[in-house]
């Protein structure tokens, strides 16, 4: 039922097509790296958690930017997509403060 008053054709503007298989390879390597970091390395707990979180966020960003095409969207949509992130940080941050 929705109308499409904007110039964009349905399905999005034509955009540069990234190499999806390369992203897939990256995701695969990062996943393997995560498992290795968690089980093979003998890092201190805090460093381990930090490295794992960085790897996870890296993977999540790859998915959001390339597979969800955020990289090729109007900048205004970036604002929309980023809106809940500060709130998530506030919630998780306070919860951590409370726990310590």
């Amino acid at each position, binding site marked *: *039922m*929705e109308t499409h*008053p904007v110039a964009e054709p349905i399905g999005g503007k034509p955009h540069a097509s990234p190499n999806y298989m390369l992203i897939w390879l990256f995701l695969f390597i990062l996943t393997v790296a995560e498992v290795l970091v968690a089980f093979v390395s003998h890092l201190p707990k805090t460093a381990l958690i930090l490295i794992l979180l960085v790897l996870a966020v890296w993977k999540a960003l790859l998915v959001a930017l390339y597979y969800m095409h955020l990289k090729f969207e109007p900048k205004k949509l970036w604002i929309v997509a980023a809106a809940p992130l500060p*709130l998530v940080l506030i*919630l998780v941050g*306070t919860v951590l*403060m409370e726990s310590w």
Partner: protein
Amino acid sequence: MSTIVLPQDAQGHAAPHHDDRSFVRKYIFSTDHKIIGIQFLFMSLFFLLVGGILAMAMRWQLAWPSDPNVPLPGGGMLPETMVTNGIMLPEFYNSLVTMHGTIMVFFAIMPLLVGVWANYLIPLQIGAEDMAFPRLNMASFWTAVPAGLIMMSSFFVVGGAANAGWTGYAPLSVNEVYSGVKLGQQLWALSLITLGFSSLMGSVNYITTIVNMRAPGMTYMRMPLSTWALFITSILILLAIPVLTGALILMFFDQTLGTTFYQPQDGGQPLLWQHLFWFFGHPEVYILILPAMGFVSDILSNGARKPIFGYTAMVLAIAGIAFLGWVVWGHHMFMSGMNPMLGSTFMVTTMLIAVPSAIKTFNWLGTLYRANIRFHVPMLHALAFVSMFVIGGLSGIFLANTPVDIPLHDTYFVVAHIHYVLFGGSLFAIFGAITYWFPKMFGRMMNKPLGYVHFALTFVFFNLTFFPMHMLGSGGHMRRLYDPTQYPNLAEMQDTNVFITISALLLFGTQFIFLVNFFWSLFKGEKAPSNPWEANSLEWAAPSPPPHGNWDGVLPTVHRGPYEYASPETEADYLPQTVALRAPARTHEPIGD
């Protein structure tokens, strides 16, 4: 009276727009945003009445606790598990407390502000023919209805309705060993989860509509403040409701599966519920006031016949309140045993909310300065909002201040505060909004004398009911007490409780004037012109009531902001957004946002 002829006026008097939808498609499973708004209006007015009746029963008990000489009127009709020999049982009183809060917050005020007006006003005020997703909109209403039915049904199940307070603090709310209520508490959680889906569908719709479907010339900074407030409220709903849903799901698992998220056995955390609930709950509080601020701004500017003072500051203040709403939830938990450093941090963020609130209040006063004020009924309600919201806001400073909150927390001071904001604030704004947009919704004017009487009595009895509660609270009167006379220090203040109850009964009785006026005007009211208040915003350019599709196929073009009253560009004291003064205006209008 007016020198302006609206282009739409001609269409409004033309042959009615042919509509071949069946009755069911038109009025029951309608996808028309206006019908859905009206459906929400009837639903939430019903729940407002239910919530009011529950409050009256509570007040009766508080004034004459367990007094066989003053039995609860109608108590005889209730089963023995609620009222025995005219004496209300404590478990039923706790259910009343819980259900009054839950129903008023989730099924009366929230849909009255958002469900009704976001649906009805947004497309009209931004110049769209309907919502972005009309069928999703219909689904939103038809999800809210079963949620309400589930909530109401809990009164009739074994053990009665939920009785752990509207805040549902765990472990009382998750373990029937402590509360005596199992099924009622589960239905409570289930109903709110269901309602969450309804709100979510609504807010996705409102946001998309406002972002993508504004009429030509309708830049963001030309939107009426009602729409701005509803826009930001939708964002709050979108991001806050899922947190409540998550928290309720964990609660439901605790209640049904035997998990222990919120129960201290095996390491569960009762405070976890409070954190999640209030992380949702404080944005929720602003969901319940921001739209009211928007409506009041529209009505006030119209009644004052003057542009709203500081439009940009008003928009920024709404956004500021909305953002601060996310970082203050801990002020509900000052006494909860939360880390005291967090308490101090939350105090400062909470007190900062005074800043945008003050901006709004002063700007409303600024709007009245050197104005030419018409005291129509909606205007009176809007003015009552301003003066009552000031009291609610100022009493909030007491509660935000951590040391002062120590004696006041969980007392009637809090009850007074919330009712000054939610009744004195939101509900006055709702009365204002209903009386203001009634002609647009139903094509008929509401009765004026009845409107004035209803306003005056409501204003007086409201203050007589809720102001003394401040003093009860600072006197040490705890909330949610079935029988305050059990405490010798509170028994001394019993005459105040009686006074409050009598005022509350009168306040409740006064509302029937409104109901009579509403239904009488619905059928017998004077026919309304398309712009009875001589207002500027787009909805008044459509016929009253607007046809399906709103604009008869031609989107209105917007030339200016919505508050151009007393503009030097025209003879009349108002200048609608659609009126082009300099031809050809269309091509000269800036289109960018």
